[in-house]
């Protein structure tokens, strides 16, 4: 009888607590021909979580002087990169040393930043807050600011059922938002679905893009597809593409400590590439033509840890494409532009 009474009291106590409100599953718009995206099982997308994540993404409260948000360096009009800048400028005026990365189709990625130092988006999203050359703040201070804000407390309650904002859930919310930025509505996609035609120049560019740089092949291609192939136009690997004879930025090597990883960087997707100059991890090339010219005649065979897949190109001293072919390749790359990132209201700054 005594235990029954205790159980009843416990049940009443639980019943008197405020239950978290139900969340609404977020219907992710996965482009046709894309594989199912691996959404983290411990962070299912909800409307409440995604909208909270978007608000955090665009809120300058994440920076020490409240002047910069994630959106400051990842602008929708530039394919979620930084306004064509080679390096972003932090709140103190400090200049970064890597080019701002585009943010789309991140659900398929398994490592983040150019050097892969974050394994998850939730981890990645907190990095810039504490980076002294970016937001120069502390996550604990951001947590305190958000807890002092009744609007945020309410939003976190609705999204995650927590009364007190914490760093973990800031990361989870921003992860949810960034997972929703899907991009698969380019001219190329419409062509692949039979809805639009490519120009003869674009078709030649596509042929070159998907052709091997094999000297024995009757139509020698540019071999782009080996590293930038598939629906997502990336192989998600870390590679050294022969930019330098002397490695000045260790890239992945600084993260793993493995000498064989020195000079390797994340292979970026070529989707929306026309939106995101300048190019390479350090933004050294201003235009796509400069990039093509690099592969055509500028690769360094003696670059440490150069990827074996560059072998055909290097053996031949470059791609050896003529001007018409190089222009065609650029024309094809321009078909990978998806303007919906710029126009989709879901991705826009909610404070505007």
């Amino acid at each position, binding site marked *: 009888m005594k235990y029954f009474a205790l159980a009843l009291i416990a049940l009443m106590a639980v019943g008197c607590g405020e239950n978290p409100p139900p969340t609404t599953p977020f219907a992710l718009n996965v482009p046709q021909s894309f*594989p199912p995206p*691996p959404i983290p099982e411990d962070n299912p997308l909800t409307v409440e979580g995604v909208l909270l994540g978007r608000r955090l993404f665009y809120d300058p409260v994440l920076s020490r002087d409240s002047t910069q948000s994630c959106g400051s360096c990842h602008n929708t009009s530039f394919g979620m990169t930084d306004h064509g800048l080679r390096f972003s400028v932090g709140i103190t005026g400090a200049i970064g040393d890597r080019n701002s990365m585009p943010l789309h189709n991140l659900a398929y990625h398994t490592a983040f930043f150019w050097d892969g130092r974050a394994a998850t988006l939730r981890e990645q999203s907190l990095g810039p807050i504490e980076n002294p050359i970016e937001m120069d703040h502390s996550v604990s201070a951001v947590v305190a600011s958000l807890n002092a804000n009744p609007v945020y407390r309410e939003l976190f309650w609705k999204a995650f059922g927590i009364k007190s904002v914490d760093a973990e859930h800031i990361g989870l919310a921003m992860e949810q938002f960034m997972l929703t930025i899907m991009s698969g509505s380019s001219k190329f996609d419409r062509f692949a679905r039979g809805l639009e035609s490519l120009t003869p120049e674009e078709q030649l560019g596509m042929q070159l893009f998907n052709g091997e740089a094999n000297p024995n092949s009757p139509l020698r291609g540019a071999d782009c597809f080996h590293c930038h192939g598939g629906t997502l136009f990336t192989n998600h690997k870390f590679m050294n593409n022969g930019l330098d004879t002397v490695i000045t930025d260790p890239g992945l090597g600084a993260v793993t400590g493995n000498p064989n990883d020195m000079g390797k960087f994340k292979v970026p997707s070529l989707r929306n590439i026309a939106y995101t100059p300048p190019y390479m991890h350090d933004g050294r090339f201003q235009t796509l033509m400069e990039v093509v010219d690099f592969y055509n005649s500028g690769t360094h065979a003696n670059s440490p840890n150069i990827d074996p897949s560059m072998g*055909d190109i290097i053996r031949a001293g470059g791609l050896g494409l003529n001007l018409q072919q190089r222009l065609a390749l650029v024309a094809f790359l321009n078909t990978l532009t998806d303007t919906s990132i710029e126009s989709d209201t879901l991705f826009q700054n909610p404070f505007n």
Partner: protein
Amino acid sequence: MRNLVLFSALVAFALSCTPDATEASLELQVLPKWNGQDLAYSSMTLVQPETGDTFQWERSDMLLSEFALIQEDGSRLPLVDDAGDPIYAFFSKDKPWVVTVPKNIPKANYTGIEFTVGLDSVRNFGDPSQWKVGHPLNPTVNNLHWGWQGGYIFMAIEGFYQNSGAREPWLYHIATMENRMPVRVNGNLDLRGARRLVLNWNAEKLFYAINEVRPSEDGAFSHSTFDGGVAHRISENVTQSFSWVALENVK
């Protein structure tokens, strides 16, 4: 009396939970080797015993399908997963090479195992977006899909080799239906319980088995076309590169 009824009910429930005693499970474990030693990556220390060529290994990715056991009458017993679907596997450098067959194999003696490095034409040219998250044929899992034109690379191996003292890259991407690689490994496969079959993948045999392949003479690069046949010669060697190590009981 009430206790007896309760006890009987418990026994009946326990018996109903006992797995079907007529079926066995199998775990296939493949160990990447070079001359009998664990395959060491990123080190220019791998000497091919027959040709004397020295290699550095960087990548070994492969897709496997058409797993089957050979029954004593010589017929094939295709292996399937829990849903009764064919089993596929993706082997890569950084993960254990393990294929698990659930407890659905008729208990018996088998004389060997077969599988194919590669895919049939339906899977090879099918829509790659059909495969669920984490499936070996999901292109984001294996990164072996050629792209929108269709088709997978069945095996991608890459590295460097010593060519007259110089360190030069080699790369062989084995693809196209002509280069499917059927593998058969014979042995006494007593499957009357949970078992683990351990095989070696002897990477040195890719350069000397049915065919001798020397990057400096036969070509160091191939994407399986316009390569003078080197990819096909390697694919034939792959069929001879797996060997029996042990059949172990699994508790």
